[in-house]
């Protein structure tokens, strides 16, 4: 069969309507590498006074709400938080799980979509990976913040004390420690590896301190065949290996709850349920961030397009359904089992004084996505997507709130029930939210937010082919 293929690298003349529509997609709207480089470099160095004002504000919030409040709490006692008997874990753990969930975005987008060659991933893998790293950084603070004696946190690290006593490797908290360490390290590396060619690009285009830093970080990258081959190999290893690590992290987080004897926590489905929830919240957060980046970062409207929101919106719908499936599965089985303590907890989830949290969770996680995301117009409208994804994340936060303090509050002895009212937790949680945004904002002016070489690679591999009478977008096997 004679097929006429045109590489999109060369501008096609005589564009008809069909092609114009195709050109709405980034991959079919190629620009020369030089120009892409320029756009990314500009986005990186371009700042406004408003940007700095926001950064300064966030820095103050981080200083006061996170470090100030935390320091005060270290000096006075964990009692400043609202935790109590029997709700020994509260918003700290809720926020911890939330951030760990957010951190699933990067790996999901970048590793799973990479493995499955989902081409729409290309422009925002880095944005998502950054979320992973910063989400983990924010989340990993919480096991420390929540400790009663944070100054001896290092006793959890696997090393023997003076009397050859090691940590307890049967404790899910040690697993947590290992898993989070593994995930934090590997996701940071996974962020870094594909960044090297872009750092080299930035190195070649900067002077002064930026040049020095990029030079150091680019590891002398020249782009030789060996370097590319190594990178490809490493990225492949990482892409395949980091997926189970990602699953393991949130599974272990779920085991913190599931291995205990607490009613409702003790559930075998918690692992996948948590993972699906994490991906739902992570992908939502990616959409949120993409919408914001698109609006605030220079030239981003070129890289991030409605097609991406559209694709992610579909993913969100799928994950919202998956979440609902797992949630219902967990709920039904627990409810049907009829164990009294479990039924009590479930009753209090949906009918207790804090039931509005549970109901909001259902509305935000299921009702709203299901009612909206099936619609292509909605999926392609950035501000609507911004609202929907923010709500999904609120819903996911509420899910964790339901699971942690609202479950602990009603255990087997009704005499010892206790309602939990968060106190300083809220301030510290705001502090880490600010920390996350601050880190992200700073990174956006320091790290090329778009993996130029990957976009370019994709654009080169995409072409429009004439098959019969139609022009069909295709992807070459080039990779």
């Amino acid at each position, binding site marked *: 069969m004679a097929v006429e293929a045109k590489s999109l690298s060369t501008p096609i003349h005589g564009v008809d309507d069909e092609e114009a529509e195709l050109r709405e997609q980034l991959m079919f709207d190629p620009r020369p590498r030089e120009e892409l480089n320029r756009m990314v470099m500009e986005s990186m160095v371009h700042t406004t006074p408003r940007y700095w004002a926001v950064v300064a504000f966030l820095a103050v919030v981080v200083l006061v709400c996170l470090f100030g409040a935390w320091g005060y709490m270290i000096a006075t006692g964990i009692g400043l938080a609202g935790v109590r008997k029997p709700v*020994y874990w509260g918003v700290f753990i809720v926020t911890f799980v939330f951030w760990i969930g957010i951190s699933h975005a990067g790996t999901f987008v970048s590793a799973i979509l990479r493995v499955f060659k989902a081409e729409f991933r290309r422009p925002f893998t880095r944005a998502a990976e950054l979320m992973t790293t910063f989400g983990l950084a924010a989340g990993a603070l919480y096991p420390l913040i929540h400790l009663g004696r944070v100054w001896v946190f290092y*006793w959890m690290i696997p090393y023997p004390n003076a009397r050859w006593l090691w940590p307890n490797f049967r404790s899910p908290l040690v697993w947590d420690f290992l898993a989070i360490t593994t995930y934090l390290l590997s996701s940071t590396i996974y962020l870094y590896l594909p960044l090297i060619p872009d750092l080299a690009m930035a190195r070649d285009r900067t002077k002064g301190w930026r040049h020095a830093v990029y030079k150091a970080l680019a590891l002398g990258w020249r782009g030789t065949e060996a370097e590319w081959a190594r990178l490809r190999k490493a990225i492949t290893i990482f892409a395949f290996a980091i997926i189970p690590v990602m699953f393991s992290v949130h599974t272990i987080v779920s085991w913190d709850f599931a291995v205990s004897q607490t009613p409702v926590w003790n559930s075998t489905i918690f692992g996948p349920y948590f993972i699906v929830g994490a991906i739902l919240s992570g992908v939502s957060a990616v959409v949120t961030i993409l919408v914001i980046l698109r609006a605030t970062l220079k030239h981003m409207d070129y890289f991030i397009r409605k097609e991406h929101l559209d694709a992610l919106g579909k993913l969100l719908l799928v994950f919202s359904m998956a979440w609902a499936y797992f949630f219902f599965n967990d709920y039904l089985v627990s409810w049907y089992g009829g164990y009294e303590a479990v039924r009590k907890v479930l009753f209090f989830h949906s009918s207790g004084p804090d039931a509005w949290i549970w109901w909001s969770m259902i509305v935000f996680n299921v009702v709203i996505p299901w009612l909206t995301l099936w619609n292509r117009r909605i999926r392609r409208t950035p501000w609507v997507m911004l609202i929907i994804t923010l709500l999904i994340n609120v819903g996911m936060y509420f899910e964790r709130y339901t699971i942690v303090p609202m479950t602990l509050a009603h255990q*087997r*002895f*009704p005499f*010892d029930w206790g309602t939990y009212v968060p106190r300083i937790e809220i301030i510290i949680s705001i502090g880490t939210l600010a920390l996350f945004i601050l880190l992200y904002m700073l990174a956006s002016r320091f790290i090329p937010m778009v993996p130029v070489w990957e976009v370019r690679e994709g654009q080169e591999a995409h072409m429009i082919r004439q098959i019969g009478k139609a022009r069909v977008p295709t992807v070459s096997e080039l990779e």
Partner: protein
Amino acid sequence: MAEEKQTGRWGMVIDLDVCTGCNACVTACAMENNIPWTGEEDAGYGRGMHWIRVQRYWEGEYPDISPHYQPVMCQQCGRAPCEPVCPVFATVHSEEQQINLQVYNRCIGTRYCANNCPYIARSFNWFDYSQQIPTPMNYYLNPNVTVRRRGVMEKCTFCVQRIYEGQERAKAEGRAVRDGEIVPACAQACPTDAIIFGDLSDPDSRVSKAARNQRRYTLLEELGTEPKVTYLKGEGTYGG
């Protein structure tokens, strides 16, 4: 360590038919074990440090209503759910006494053990409550019991300091520990003697005999935690 002979599986029986719910055990425990008070607001917000508490439930409707008392403390589980979840071995099983120990020095305050305790028997030092004891009231603090600082978990120890003292005394006198020689503060104070404490490995001890009573049950038996505290059903449900 296991090289010593297996005696002294300490256990307790609480006869709910005799328990009047008077809370003397609560006070006695606090006075023996240097448990700090927390004040009105914190105590009301579930931060009371009581190692033992008397759960009071109501049964029936007025006028045929009666309270049901159940003193609950750490049940010293044989298979304690709190123990394996601690990342730093701060709560461990004592092979000698077969009880559940809390090592304050090692505790880093993850509070996982308390979450995993189905009996909600653990108290956490949310603040430096014991530092708030004004001088000279701290004079009465028991020198044999650690004064806990903030950020660590604590719980009933079966008055392990008394167990040790009794064992050492018996050893020094070259004899076995006599039944009833070692009593924790709660059992010592209990005005109706509803709390019986002793060695479960000795079948003739008072506690062993009481634990074989037909009215016996353990709390949340279905969890398989193998508690060392046995309750005897109250309110006239007599069998043997």
